[in-house]
């Protein structure tokens, strides 16, 4: 029964979210024809005991994809930020989006 603080909507129940998998791999450029790099992206996953970045989709909320850092042992949500952002995590705080 996770609670995830969406940067846009605030703290919400897990039922509003869809799990989107590992967020620690970056999709190769589309023009990259190297099967190995694509295979790395699609198939090879770290399975850390501890902090792990993963995508969650606020499916029933603002429909934004979020990059959630979660502790896989305690389920503690350490940070949440929009998937499109690459700067510092928002630490679960509400942000103004104007």
């Amino acid at each position: 029964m996770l609670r995830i603080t969406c940067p846009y909507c605030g703290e919400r129940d897990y039922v509003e979210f869809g799990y989107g998998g590992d967020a620690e791999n970056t999709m190769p450029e589309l023009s990259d024809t190297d099967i190995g790099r694509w295979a790395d992206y699609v198939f090879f996953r770290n399975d850390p005991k501890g902090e792990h970045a993963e995508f969650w989709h606020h499916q029933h909320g603002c429909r934004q994809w979020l990059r959630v850092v979660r502790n896989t042992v305690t389920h503690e949500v350490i940070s949440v930020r929009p998937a499109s952002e690459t700067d510092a995590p928002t630490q679960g705080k509400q942000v103004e989006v104007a």
Partner: protein
Amino acid sequence: MADIRSALGSVYKAGPLGTPRDFPGVTLQEQSPRNLIQLSGWPDSFGAICESIAARLGIRVPVDCLTVTTHDDVSILRVGPTRLWFVCGASSARVRAFTETLGAGDAVTTEIGHSRTVLRITGSEARTVLNRGLPIDLDDRAFPENVFAQSVIHHIPVLVHRLPSSDGPAFDVYVSREYAVSFWEWLVEAAAPLGGRILESA
């Protein structure tokens, strides 16, 4: 224009609901179809769009995805970081006239009025019945008037807007049209123990 057919069709029947009470716990009413115009922009230019909305339509765009701003019969709900819903009555022409001035590079608009059924829930037990399914804190402190939330009830996506009201809590619930009958059936069953009535559609 042909009439817009209610998604609730024959399942909607006005009348008393469930356990009889002195004061109805819950009052349910289907709202007339809404003009719902969605405007989506991009982060770099969205601020400018918001300014021109304020200038042209006289409505301040909310800064967060929780607050509703209203002017005349137009309300703005910020349903995503750079996405707005204009919920409008007769003024929809003004809003459309405005959106038509925007180029695709600034913002794009989509009409979605037919895709939502709007149900109004009022009464002393309005919060109770919503929280039978809604995992959102509806307390005055957490969910004051003119706040909305997009969430899910009984696996059905909903948008719940707390209306300004001098007469107890009042909510408009926006439900995807194709789910409307299922949601209605759920709602009526959840409301029955609390007692109340179903009003004729607005």
